[in-house]
């Protein structure tokens, strides 16, 4: 989804808001909402990918003005209604907030919420550290973890992180599509153009389905294959 949540590279969002001696929660309702959200995830009422996608489906005109746990309230409520676990009528007295529509999701997720882990034997990686790849140019209306700023860009695999379920499927009730996830390094100049520093890069965790092989590429001024991660 090319949504408002996909913020990498945006300008105009102001200074970074910092607070001295910041508490873990700023109000009791934040504390309760955090616990509630975690509980709904642990109980597999919805999956983490469904929850993230629900946050992405908050109307863009609201998204940037909301505090973090306000997004949790809106997304969790919307998702519970969509799944039929609570009825809008049960929230009477509260103004309805509708999430943007998405592909149908019904019932509880039947996929494991946590990672499949490195133990997912038999799933062979398509790429190896040092391998040159291009992040695909895709613009799905649904959930994806391939940010827009990386699409169509060339990078180098620096690490195989193991096998995980593809969020693009899990978020839409599509079950587990297990595949390798790689840390892929992109030179800042590849991402942002020739004005960028030759001594900067961004490394992004990307599922195999987001990548295709590439050839003949320099990652930055120094290293040609960017192996290792330190």
């Amino acid at each position: 989804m090319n949504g408002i949540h996909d913020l990498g590279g945006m300008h105009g969002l102001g200074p970074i808001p910092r607070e001295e001696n910041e508490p873990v929660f700023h109000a009791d309702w934040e504390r309760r909402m955090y616990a509630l959200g975690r509980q709904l995830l642990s109980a597999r009422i919805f999956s983490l990918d469904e929850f993230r996608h629900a946050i992405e489906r908050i109307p863009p005109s609201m998204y940037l003005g909301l505090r973090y746990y306000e997004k949790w309230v809106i997304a969790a409520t919307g998702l519970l209604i969509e799944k039929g676990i609570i009825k809008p009528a049960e929230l009477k007295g509260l103004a309805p907030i509708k999430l943007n529509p998405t592909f149908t999701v019904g019932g509880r997720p039947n996929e494991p919420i946590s990672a499949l882990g490195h133990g997912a034997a038999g799933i062979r990686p398509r790429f190896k550290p040092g391998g040159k790849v291009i992040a695909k140019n895709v613009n799905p209306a649904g959930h994806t973890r391939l940010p827009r700023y990386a699409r169509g860009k060339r990078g180098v695999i620096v690490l195989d992180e193991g096998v995980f379920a593809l969020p693009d499927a899990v978020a839409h009730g599509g079950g587990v599509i297990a595949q390798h996830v790689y840390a892929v390094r992109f030179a800042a100049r590849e991402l942002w153009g020739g004005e960028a520093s030759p001594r900067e890069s961004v490394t992004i965790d990307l599922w195999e389905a987001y990548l295709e092989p590439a050839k003949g590429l320099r990652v930055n001024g120094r290293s040609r294959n960017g192996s290792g991660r330190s």
Partner: protein
Amino acid sequence: MAANHHEHDHHRHDEPESDAAIRVKALESILTSKGLMDTAALDMLVDTYENRVGPRNGARVVARAWVDFAFKKRLLSDATAAVNELGFPPGPEGFNLIVLENTSKVHNLVVCTLCSCYPWSVLGLPPVWYKSPAYRARAVSDPRGVMREFGAEIDDDVEIRVWDSSAEVRYLVLPERPAGSEALSEEELAELVTRDAMIGVAKVNPPQGTAKSRKRRSRVASRV
């Protein structure tokens, strides 16, 4: 660290009953009545993240790595297991941890542009700024500018590696051990380590009171 509030991020904890507070209360009551909530579990979860898991965990990991080379080696090759040695399990989220080592030549910085992925098990819950649109937007395209805003100047010849944490792995930055900290104990070292340094937006400052000796030392070093 200078407080630098953005207009839209004023905290409203003294407001009596916000719309969000009312909504959370309603949600909690509906879900409890359906038997979907386990109040005791909720309380324990809150206690864990409010009082027991936080940046002090990460600081202990960092200090140990500074004093114990074998631990540091294990940390860099399998952080999930190494951190478990100190009694910090990967947490209920079950994510794998990766530790990124800062050196005089390479500086690492972590962000999650799509939401706010963060290494809960070693740093606790993220601060507001880490979750802010401003940080998520700029960390990937202007990391030096972001660090300047945090008061950290990174030399032009240092390579900056930004990590956009978009999947199921979580990143912890192992900052450089500051000059002048040679005589400190592991516990004293842990005191120096800040959350911001373990995200990568800042460096670990030298221990106070030794700035002078450090300056002298670096003046000597520059003549070598």
